[in-house]
């Protein structure tokens, strides 16, 4: 097996294994695994309706995955994308309400930029805390996420609340002109394009640009980056800001395209699923595109599983968790030298290949 195949084969195998285990699990609940797998596929990719659902979910996933991937290339593990997302959505709603904006694309762009900015600042804070205060960014980004969510809930239910929203607190809705519509009249909004473009642009930037390479050096070995004079702290914060901008953009798009206002259903765990997507894609922005679509499909299928088979919608969460565990375990297999392993197994089966060297009492391990 050529080594270049392994990076692709292993995640695929891991996901297949996860599906298998999931099937076994639901079998215990009295459900036919084959039905589950079929429904998963149907719910994700089986019809145009399913595809739309999938792509709608894939869009924010791509962006929140970038929030993990870009800082990861700089050597950080940021898991607070959820916080950046809600702040992005909040910023979008707030700006739409407080600032007079022209209708049409310009207005939409402005609110999206506002969302991206909010997200960028929040994650950049986590980066700053790491570089200048030595605080582990995983913990700090998660704490910041919880703080952001608390802040969000406070504002949405309090000062920014739309008086007309009684049962479910929400901010004022965006005016029609600012909302992001579907592509060519479909349900799939332009946010998908934003997600794909962001992935492609950032992927190219990381690989082909000097600043992208500098970030990779910082992520590869901080000491070496310092040795060659790269401004490591600045680069780390830039990486965080870029990742946060993506997550913030996701929030803004969710508000502008899906919910039309900022409310508690914005907190839909896209941030955490994004972590999973990024790890599976091994933090490669281009690879994030197909993986996000796959996991968007899982999410879309979840509601179908609930309706048809009565499985709780948390089952998709379980599938994701199992998949993540298998992906991580498969990392351990990445370095296995398959040729040598096969040779060893063959040796066990057949006769020893060389004549034993003359020695009084041959010592040593059995091959």
């Amino acid at each position, binding site marked *: 097996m050529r080594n270049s195949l392994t990076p692709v084969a292993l995640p695929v195998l891991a996901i297949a294994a996860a599906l298998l285990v999931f099937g076994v699990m639901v079998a215990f609940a009295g459900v036919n695994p084959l039905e589950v797998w079929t429904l998963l596929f149907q719910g994700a990719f089986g019809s145009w309706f399913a595809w739309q659902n999938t792509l709608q979910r894939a869009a924010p996933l791509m962006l929140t995955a970038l929030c993990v991937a870009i800082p990861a290339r700089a050597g950080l593990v940021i898991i607070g994308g959820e916080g950046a997302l809600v702040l992005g959505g909040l910023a979008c709603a707030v700006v739409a309400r407080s600032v007079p904006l022209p209708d049409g694309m310009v207005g939409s762009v402005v609110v999206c930029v506002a969302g991206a900015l909010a997200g960028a600042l929040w994650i950049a804070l986590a980066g700053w805390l790491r570089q200048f205060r030595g605080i582990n960014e995983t*913990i700090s980004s*998660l704490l910041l996420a919880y703080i952001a969510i608390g802040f969000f809930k*406070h504002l949405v239910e309090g000062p920014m609340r739309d008086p007309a929203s009684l049962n479910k607190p929400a901010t004022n809705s965006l005016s029609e002109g600012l909302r992001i519509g579907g592509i060519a009249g479909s349900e799939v909004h332009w946010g998908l394009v934003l997600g794909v473009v962001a992935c492609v642009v950032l992927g190219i930037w990381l690989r082909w640009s000097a600043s992208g390479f500098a970030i990779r050096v910082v992520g590869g070995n901080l000491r070496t980056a310092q040795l060659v004079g790269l401004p490591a702290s600045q680069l780390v914060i830039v990486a965080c800001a870029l990742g946060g901008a993506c997550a913030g953009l996701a929030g803004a798009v969710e508000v502008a395209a899906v919910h039309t206002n900022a409310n508690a259903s914005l907190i839909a765990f896209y941030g955490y699923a994004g972590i999973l997507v990024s790890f599976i894609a091994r933090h490669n922005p281009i690879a994030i595109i197909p993986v996000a679509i796959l996991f968007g499909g899982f999410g879309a299928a979840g509601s179908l599983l609930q309706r048809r088979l009565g499985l709780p919608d948390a089952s*998709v969460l379980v599938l994701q*968790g199992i998949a993540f*565990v298998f992906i*991580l375990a498969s*990392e351990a297999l990445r*370095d296995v030298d398959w040729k040598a392993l096969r040779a060893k197994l063959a040796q066990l089966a057949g006769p020893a290949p060389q004549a034993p060297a003359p020695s009084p009492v041959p010592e040593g391990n059995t091959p």
Partner: protein
Amino acid sequence: MTPDQWIALFAGIVGGALRVGTPFLFVSLGECLTEKSGRINLGLEGVLVLSAMAAFAGAYLGESAWIGVLCGALAGGLLAALHGVLCSLPRVNDVATGIALMLLGTGLAFYLGKPFIQPQAPQIPALELGGWSSSPAVQSALQINMLLPLGLALAVLLWWGFTRTRWGLLVRMAGDSANAARALGYSINGIRILATTVGGMIAGLGGASLTLFYPGSWNEGISSGQGLIAVALVIFARWSPLRCIGAAALFGGAGAIGPALQSVGVGWGYHLFNTVPYVLTLLILVLTCKPGSVAQGSPGELSSR
């Protein structure tokens, strides 16, 4: 606010410190043990939620709170053992595994716990310490969880064990220098897996206390980051089990401000007050961490990331 309301508020915070602090104590003790052995377990959030559900299910199905506590501990231990085994594989990232387990544990708990959201399960009996007061607020504040004395005893046991028993010394050595332990022929992975599993069982007790005492029922919002805060708590307590007690009390109190205010009729800023534990944690991290240098008392192997 009238004096009665002040007393009620104060009692509410103290009560909160005791009630909310109990799960904090268990989870931080569990993480303390795990980190002393050189491994970080970010999946405690998943462990907490899963063991909370398991405890509730066990108590409901077994019709006894103590069976539930046992189930909670077992579930916590199992999930943590998975973390330990995964992390012992080469090239597997501690942090990523923790997040995976967070998702898996939460997902499993929600998936398996759907049937248990409505029913009531037998609760852990309370120790009434507030009999001397006439104020109902104080009385309710001082109803403490029977698991709390167990937790305090556990903290003392861990503190004592780390310097006086073979196992405690081995755990510290595995966490301080993998080289040293390996050179003496000990299996690092074995020690760490064991420490992580036992840590998970201890954290499971915290989960049990959530669903079987306070708030006393199972639902999907039972935990909001307590597992993660525990990691910061342990840093705050500088890896000493005794200091974990104080840290847990502090955080429990901070987390109780919101609900306590609500109970005296002050509804403003409920969500903001709920962010106090997180803000406090962040503040403490800012004050105690310095870039580039190792925190005093930290196990050597933890900072090798």
